């Protein structure tokens, strides 16, 4: 066997080279070999907290404060340091056990990758207490080559070869561990904060790449808003397995945060009983929105529409429209135009419609199936609203001709209208001309891609 002790200390050793490093007692006697490296999480993230030593007595644990790095690369225990037995529930990340050959999330690159090696970095001088930190994780060919060649040739030769291979590394601050055990996830202080910053589509892509246990563990730690956004983006089969793992209670609170149209599509895929139990746990308001959408055929305009849109009385002015936008409860970035409705009809709705003013966006769905929806009279693009004076009457800004579609129209018709009139959004009306929802461009794109 080759001796693993390095002739001179490498300032950036890799985990694979460090494993089986010789560890000596204060008096220089052999104490064992390095088996694993424990790294702190939380505030001290990345710092080596201790070493797991394999000795004749089995595996033992020694804290980093009780050892010093030697100039020849070995590690020396300080006087009086003892190997503690390993309990198995330490709140440290073990590099070999938790990282090597495992999958991690590259938060920066937004994907799931497999760890080939871990690069560490020495701080402080040789002879001072151990100050070693994780620098980056190797996921490319270089790390793999180093490990495959280990023991087959001297380390200096391996380093020379490795230096010629271009590296693919992920800095430690962009590494997110995948821990399937929720209790340990908490203990390791693994937060999903950084995942929450990702675009929902990227997060969905990551979830799709993981095995079920890990996927569910990570999904369970996301807060409801983030989980809802991600859930809208994952494919239907996966949606199903994810929410079935959560149970109706938590699913309900996530579904409340979802776009009603996406929520209805998702619930449609579930067994009736289960979707019923989710709906029952939901807030009155959101449940009503979703239930209304569930009534429509999935391939009709109404089945594809959302009920989150902004409507204002036809007689209103720009200031009132801006106010309605401020009060809009849906995602503001999805709004491309506002809808002008027959003021008289709008008043009849039981919801928060002010007698003379604009109505908050989601009001019409609260009107219930029985009452008439306010009739759509005009459409104002958002940009035109932005350029106009606050007191300008909305009727002056509205396009005289605008496209709308009947709720029963097939989604192919919807796609045709989008194409013909270069639309970004298309209002959906009932048989009496009442505005009941809006189809957005992304749903048309999704449909067209599915149809291919």
């Amino acid at each position, binding site marked *: 066997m080759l001796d693993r002790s390095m002739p001179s200390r490498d300032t950036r050793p890799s985990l694979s080279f460090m494993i089986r490093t010789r560890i000596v007692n204060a008096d220089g006697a052999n104490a064992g070999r390095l088996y694993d490296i424990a790294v702190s999480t939380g505030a001290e993230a990345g710092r080596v907290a201790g070493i797991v030593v394999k000795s004749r007595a089995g595996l033992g644990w020694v804290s980093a404060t009780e050892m010093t790095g030697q100039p020849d690369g070995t590690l020396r225990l300080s006087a009086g340091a003892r190997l503690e037995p390993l309990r198995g529930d330490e709140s440290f990340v073990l590099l070999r056990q938790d990282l*090597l*050959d*495992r999958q991690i999330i590259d938060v920066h690159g937004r994907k799931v*990758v*497999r*760890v*080939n090696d871990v690069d560490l970095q020495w701080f402080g001088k040789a002879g001072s207490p151990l100050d070693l930190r994780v620098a980056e994780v190797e*996921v490319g060919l270089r790390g*793999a080559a180093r*490990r*495959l060649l280990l023991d087959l040739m001297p380390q200096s030769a391996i380093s020379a070869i490795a230096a010629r291979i271009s590296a693919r590394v992920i800095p430690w601050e962009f590494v997110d561990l995948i821990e399937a055990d929720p209790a340990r996830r908490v203990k390791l202080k693994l937060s999903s904060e950084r995942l929450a910053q990702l675009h929902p589509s990227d997060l969905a892509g990551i979830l799709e790449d*993981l*095995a*079920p*246990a890990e*996927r569910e563990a990570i999904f369970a730690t996301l807060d409801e808003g983030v989980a809802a956004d991600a859930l809208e983006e994952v494919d239907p*089969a*996966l949606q199903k*397995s994810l929410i*079935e793992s959560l149970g109706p209670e938590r699913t309900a609170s996530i579904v409340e945060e979802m776009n009603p149209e996406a929520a209805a599509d998702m619930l449609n895929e579930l067994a009736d009983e289960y979707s019923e139990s989710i709906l029952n746990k939901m807030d009155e308001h959101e449940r009503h929105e979703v239930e209304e959408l569930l009534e429509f055929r999935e391939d009709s305009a109404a089945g594809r529409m959302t009920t989150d849109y902004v409507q204002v009385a036809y007689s209103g002015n720009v200031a009132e429209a801006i106010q309605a936008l401020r009060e809009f409860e849906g995602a503001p970035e999805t709004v491309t135009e506002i809808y002008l409705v027959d003021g008289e009809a709008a008043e009849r709705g039981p919801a928060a419609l002010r007698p003379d003013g604009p109505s908050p966006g989601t009001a019409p769905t609260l009107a219930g199936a029985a009452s008439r929806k306010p009739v759509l009279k005009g459409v104002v693009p958002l940009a035109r609203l932005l350029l106009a004076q606050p007191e300008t009457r909305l009727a002056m800004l509205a396009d005289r001709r605008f496209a709308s579609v009947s709720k029963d129209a097939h989604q192919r018709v919807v796609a045709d209208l989008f194409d013909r009139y270069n639309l970004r959004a298309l209002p959906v009306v009932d048989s009496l001309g009442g505005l009941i929802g809006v189809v957005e461009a992304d749903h048309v794109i999704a449909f067209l891609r599915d149809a291919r």
Partner: protein
Amino acid sequence: MTGRARARYLRNRLFFLLAILGPGFITANVDNDAGGILTYSQAGAQYGYSMLWTMLPITLALIVVQEMCARMGVVTGKGLSDLIREEFGLRLTFIVMVLLVIVNFGNVMAEFVGIVGSLQLFSISKYVAVPVCAALVWLLAVKGNYKSVEKIFLTASAFYLCYVVAGVLARPNWRQALTATVELPGRAAWHTPGYVYMVVGLIGTTIAPWMQFYLQASIVEKRIPVRKYSASRWDVIIGSLFTDLVAWFIIVACAATLFVHGHGASGLKTPGDAAEAMRPLAGKYSFLLFSFGLFNASFFSASVLPLSTAYTVCEGLGFESGVDQSFREAPFFYWLYTLLIAGGAAAVLWPGFPLIRITILSQVLNGVLLPIVIVLMLLLINRKDLMGTYVNSRLFNVVAWVTAAVVIGLSVVMMVKT
């Protein structure tokens, strides 16, 4: 039940059966590839019905091994190469992957030999057939998605029925064939030269290492939930039964024609020879069915093998993979995939290429790889932390280890002999 209700009930059952057919059924069928058909034809031509008894134990072994993969895929949601990498480290994974690439390259070559052989029977030049088929194979995977490809594969599997028809047309002695299936042959048969060797060959061609990787990966890709596991198990069982039923009919067809007329296996060098030899004995239809069956099988396997190899290797070694990625995003995946197809195709067109030597090398390495894969599988599937309550039962373990021991023993014998 009234007649109509009964018909509806039966129809529903049939649909249920068809709906659960998927990865297990496809994997088992791909297994009857050009090499497999050649081996079955030789077995039937040389030893007649006396080879049929092997079908029952082989089927059992196939089900046992495949079921474990399906179970691991459903429970862990990870591919076999992923699991090997995570639990046994990079070096062992690397060795397994290198072996797998060589073995599978040998198989891909054999598929192209099968394509050439079958199309030559229809007088299509190999210089046309091979490039066209290679291009089609390449496009099928790159342009298709899993769902549409699965449908194509399931349809291709149905075409294996033409071997059943060919078997019936060969007018075998049914009583003799059925008896030989359930009865061990007399002592004399075992002393026939090459008999043991042929038995080994039959098992070797039926249980191949790539199948375990392919099956488990497809199950993972299909995202089959644990509670639907029993459907996957039926998928595997039905697939294995169907595959071996087809194999049984190939042996019977050759036994009833080539063996009965004393043709022997000496003339059967390539997979196409059996069809050619059958023409004067069993008529035009048997010939057509045999040739078409061979083309279907070779083309089908040639589509699955390179793709499965590229996926498995990239998964295990952590390279980007998948046909939904672009060439720039997953260069290694596409290079490996393309080279396997192009290399396999070029090998059969290149006059001086050491085809036979590479085939033998890949068979030897197959014998090395198979025991490794089966042992790793058994170690993995008995791990409680991975499989929970789905670890092997004791009885299953006994059956599985015996299967493994037999397969390993036979592979070693095979290896030493080649």
